[in-house]
């Protein structure tokens, strides 16, 4: 990563580029993509408890996917990888979305209990559905766009619980294989959108470290195009 930036002169920021890597569901595939792009990730794959992995070319910082936009917007990380679901939920964070990495594919859906008409009944008789979700803004936007009234209930833990014990009529959540839904006797009623992992950049880093950011984007594009 020793790319010279034409004429950057005194504007060159200090130290290696900082890349925010999402732990959790995207972690494995993010590391595979970075490997394919020529970035050493062996250390991250161990069971180290460290959060920061430094090499001469690049510093990898691991964090929750939902924290990636926060760190990147502030410039604490120059670039990062996170899910589109996170970017949509935090759409007021100013980060540049440079690349669809293609992996981590999952669907944001509206789900209800199998064979249960609570969703339709609440809408018809009460004029309003109660929807539990970890993605209140995505959910609100979806129902607003489709002209329906809902009470969005934000929960932090297992959303599947909410309709089972009567907190909500249905849920809006991310589904990859559908197994969790099935195990909890829930089924997909509507697809809201498709999400994949995205490569994002801080606005100032995108300007001041243009050469490095562009080179990394190109390598990731190549690595994930296959």
């Amino acid at each position, binding site marked *: 990563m020793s790319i010279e*930036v*034409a*004429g950057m*002169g*005194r*504007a*060159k*920021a*200090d*130290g290696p580029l900082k890349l925010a890597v999402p732990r959790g569901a995207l972690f494995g595939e993010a590391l595979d993509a970075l490997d394919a792009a020529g970035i050493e990730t062996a250390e991250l794959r161990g069971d180290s408890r460290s959060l920061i992995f430094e090499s001469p070319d690049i510093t990898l910082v691991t964090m929750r996917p939902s924290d990636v936009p926060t760190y990147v*917007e*502030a*410039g*604490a990380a120059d670039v990062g990888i996170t899910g589109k679901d996170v970017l949509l939920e935090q759409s*007021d964070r*100013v980060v*540049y*979305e*440079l*690349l*669809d990495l293609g992996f981590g594919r999952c669907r944001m859906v509206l789900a209800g209990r199998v064979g249960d008409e609570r969703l339709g009944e609440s809408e018809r008789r009460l004029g309003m559905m109660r929807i539990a979700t970890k993605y209140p803004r995505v959910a609100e936007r979806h129902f607003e766009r489709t002209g329906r009234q809902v009470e969005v209930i934000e929960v932090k833990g297992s959303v599947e619980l909410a309709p089972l014990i009567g907190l909500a009529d249905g849920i809006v959540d991310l589904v990859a294989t559908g197994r969790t839904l099935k195990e909890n006797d829930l089924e997909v009623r509507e697809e809201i959108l498709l999400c994949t992992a*995205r490569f994002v950049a*801080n*606005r*100032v*880093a*995108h*300007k*001041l470290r*243009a050469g490095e950011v*562009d080179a990394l984007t190109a390598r990731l594009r190549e690595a994930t195009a296959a």
Partner: protein
Amino acid sequence: MIHPIPPGTRDVLPDEMRELRRLHLALIEVFESRGYGQVSTPAIEYNEVLARGDGRTAGGAYRFFDERGDLLALRSDMTVPIARLVASRYAEAKAPLRLCYLANAYRAIRPQRGQMREFAQAGVELVGSPAPQGTAEVVEVLEAALDAAGLTRAVVGLGDADLYRQLLAEFGVEGEARDSVLERLAMHDLVGLEAELSALEGISEEQCATCVALSQLRGGSEVLEQARSLGGAAVERATARIQETYDALKERGVADRVRIDLGLLRDLGYYSGAILEVYDPALGHVLGGGGRYDGLLRRFGLDLPAAGFALYLERVHVAQMEEESREAGGTTR
């Protein structure tokens, strides 16, 4: 006992005030020494006046009625009030006019984001001096101001506000479709931009690629060459305008820290031609911005070209501190 103040506002205590005052004096000294006289305008204006300046909004974010029932608003920047001031007080004056300010402005905030409702701006307005010389003068003053603030590593991005509007017109993209493409560009959502463009009818794959590629061009004067190779009348006109400005900057010897950036798109409604943004490597946020607004004065009945910039003082202060601790061998950034 704690008595709260509204979120997004703050008190300033003596230690910080002392530093801010040094910054204020240094900036005003730069502006005045270059012939920019300081003005002050009321924080409250008639809402109608602010709305006239920025056609996209309905006026200020904070509006209220006075005792006669007139709708008043807090200003959201200083450019519109100064346009109003120039049109009313200097209509007969000999151009160019050079004015500067250091003032608070007010914008709506999103909760829980640490954004400020009330923030301080320092800047200049150069009225009656057209591109490219007027723009070059503004950039020269901006660079001097950054130096005076100790931000010698700060960089000025130079773009063109009309590029994409004209490019999309050339591609036959208009109305709502154009607005949503411009929004993607302003957000710099490249994935969304590509999807938006390829969903449009009557726009070729090549045109789509041109638009995406243009938004990624940034660097020295070589990017103008790269842009021209993408072709088209809109690109030709925009690169010609930027080239003229860049040449004028070179003549003045202030082009070194200017980065040409064809992806620049400021979201204020009154810009035309050159647009500016200011960055410092010590800070992840934009320090300020500006550009040309040749149509703004006309909305107030005075047909004069104008250009200017504003720096967010709180952010400049943060960058100052970061740069100082970096020079002292402190933090990693």
